């Protein structure tokens, strides 16, 4: 027997539910935009800052000191794990002309040049960054940013070979050692194509600064492919090579200088060497993403980091080469461990060492695609 209750029950069950489901597309498109807003830091525009950086790339004090000194609300996260992966994350937003969450990121130079080329980076407010004058002269005006308006480097470093003496039982000298049969299955390579291929190509006697086509580099890819199919290479890793090196799973691997300096403090068996054939030098550089309006905060932050006193504190922790001139003197003033770092040839290389380092030149879009594709095929992904 139909009752009013019955009617309501029916209404609720089929009517409302159906209508509710109908409005999902509307909700879907409406929610998207509000999502990001809730994630960014609060505060008035210009007084807040969000910097997404690589992991373990800053000391614990700098951000706190900066916030206390300037009153700027700063969010600092370490979710930048991989150049390509991060690009894939922000690309849907930036390609649409929307704003990504962070104001600042620090991609490796070749990736930074991609952001600039795509028009996804803003010109830095250099007039409000007087300390930019402290930039090391050799880093000024790179080919992809000829006027130095889009980028200021965060840290610079060397890619070379790290090894665990407990496993190798001997000193490692050059690239030939990485391909030595005695280390079969105990060798690690980086997923960062330019560092892995750079070292291999230099090992083959190539100059990577002048390589501009895939054909010139093909010999290196063949060498890597063969090593992979022979089972020489245990795995391709990001920063996690340090785990494997420390645990003894890797005898030796392609590695970044600062990481190894940090690691060898805890484990003296770990050594870093620039291969006799030479190593690559690279830099991660700060760029200001389009859509961000926090120009003041960005300027104050970069200015803060380019003050040699603050730069020295960061260097003492991360153990990479600082892009800021005058850091060495500040480290000596700090004394203790920091002063010891000031003597490290990996942080402050002499002319002879510098002459053994090379940096990749620019690759055209199509050539870069060939490199990436060939590399992806070898890494097996």
């Amino acid at each position, binding site marked *: 027997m139909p009752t009013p209750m019955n009617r309501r029950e029916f209404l609720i069950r*089929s009517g409302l539910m159906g209508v509710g489901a109908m409005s999902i597309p509307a909700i879907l498109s409406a929610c998207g935009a509000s999502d990001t807003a809730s994630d960014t830091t609060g505060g008035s525009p210009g007084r807040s800052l969000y910097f997404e950086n690589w992991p373990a790339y800053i000391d614990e004090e700098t951000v706190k000191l900066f916030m206390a000194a300037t009153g700027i609300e700063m969010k600092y996260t370490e979710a930048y794990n991989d150049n390509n992966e991060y690009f894939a994350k922000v690309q849907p937003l930036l390609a649409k002309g929307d704003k990504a969450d962070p104001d600042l990121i620090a991609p490796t130079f070749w990736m930074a040049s991609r952001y600039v080329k795509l028009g996804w980076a803003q010109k830095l407010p250099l007039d409000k960054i007087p300390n930019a004058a402290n930039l090391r002269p050799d880093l000024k005006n790179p080919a992809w940013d000829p006027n130095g308006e889009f980028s200021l480097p965060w840290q610079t470093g060397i890619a070379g070979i790290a090894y665990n003496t407990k496993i190798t039982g001997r000193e490692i000298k050059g690239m030939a050692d990485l391909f030595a049969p005695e280390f079969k*299955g105990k060798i690690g390579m980086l997923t960062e194509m330019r560092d892995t291929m750079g070292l291999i190509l230099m090992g083959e006697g190539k100059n990577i600064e002048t390589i501009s086509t895939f054909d010139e580099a093909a010999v290196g890819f063949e060498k890597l492919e063969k090593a992979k199919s022979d089972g020489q290479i245990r795995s391709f890793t990001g920063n996690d090579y340090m785990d494997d090196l420390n645990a003894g799973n890797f005898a030796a691997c392609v590695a970044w200088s600062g990481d190894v300096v940090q690691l060898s403090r805890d484990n003296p068996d770990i050594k870093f060497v620039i291969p006799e054939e030479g190593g690559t030098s690279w830099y991660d550089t700060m760029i200001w993403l389009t859509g961000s309006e926090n120009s003041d905060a960005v300027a104050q932050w970069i200015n803060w980091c380019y003050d040699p006193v603050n730069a020295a504190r960061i260097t003492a922790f991360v153990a990479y080469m600082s892009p800021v001139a005058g850091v060495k003197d500040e480290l000596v003033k700090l004394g203790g461990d920091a002063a010891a770092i000031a003597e490290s040839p990996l942080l402050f290389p002499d002319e002879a060492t510098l002459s053994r380092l090379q940096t990749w030149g620019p690759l055209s*879009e199509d050539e870069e695609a060939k490199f990436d594709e060939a590399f992806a095929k070898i890494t097996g992904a």
Partner: protein
Amino acid sequence: MGAPPAVTRKPDAVGLGVMTGLGVGMVALGAGWVSGPWAVLVAVAMLTVLVLLVWAGVGGGLEVRRAIAPYGLLKPGILWLSLFFLAPLWTMAVMSLSSKKSRFDFFPSFTWDWSNYSRALTDFAPQFGRSFLYAGIATVLTICIGYPLAYAVAFRGGRLRNVLMGLIVVPFFTSYLIRTLAWGNLLADAGPVVAALEAIRLDGPLNWLGIMDNGRLLNTPTAVIGGLTYNFLPFMVLPLYVSLEKIDPRLVDAAQDLYSSAAGAFRKVVLPLSLPGVFAGSLLVFIPAAGDFVNAQFLGNPGTTMIGNSIQDQFLRQLNYPLASAMSFVLMIIISVAVLLYSRYLDTEDLV
């Protein structure tokens, strides 16, 4: 299943038709078959149908309501799945036939570009092969490990059955990634498993068999398959247990009373009755294992990558959405065909 209420045929057909129609409408809106004013039109039409339906339910008799009620209950869930399961499949199919105008063209256009499929099937044939091989071996291994476990709990567990079953399942409530990473620690070159194998001199034979590679376990195919086996074990044990638990132990006694040996009783009574569990478990292990990339990433080497790694890499690193979509589609089709063939042997209701 309760007694089916008497229904008049007509509203039944109307209910089904309306639900299907709304589902299709949902897919149309989601996948972008219609756009602009047409989308508004479709949305308005769908709303009108719903309102009419409600009105019919309110105005019509109890019979009408009874007939439409099941569809009313189904509708929210079904429409949700239409929008977020069917529509994405359609978009993915379109994407897999699209091509990029340049490397950084993030909105590929539809061009009937079949080359994505030929690349997926040629360049990534080894990864497809490995995925199905590893998933297949892992499935067999989960049966070998899971069957005694489920059997012991079902027939020997007594009153502790539920507790024991809980014990088996509980470890899988820790994070999947952490479990896999923990296996990385266990299997490391200087880790406990390798040390134990060396202590009992098993490393030689295992090397010879190719299970260990040069005295190593981590970053070998063995580790990847081992990881898959471990991580998907509960999906085998649970359905196996459910089917074994249903077996009346008196059947086994009866078989033995009739002079069947214990093994014979197992083979002739228990095994056949537990086969549905084996079938269901195999599907539940094989499917996720074939699409997995976590184990190959954490425990494998460059020569053990599976198709999941490739899809993930193409989608999230190389940004080649068309190629990644084509690979996903091929994977889904192969698995669907396998499942269809397989499910001829079992009722879908027995899954899970």
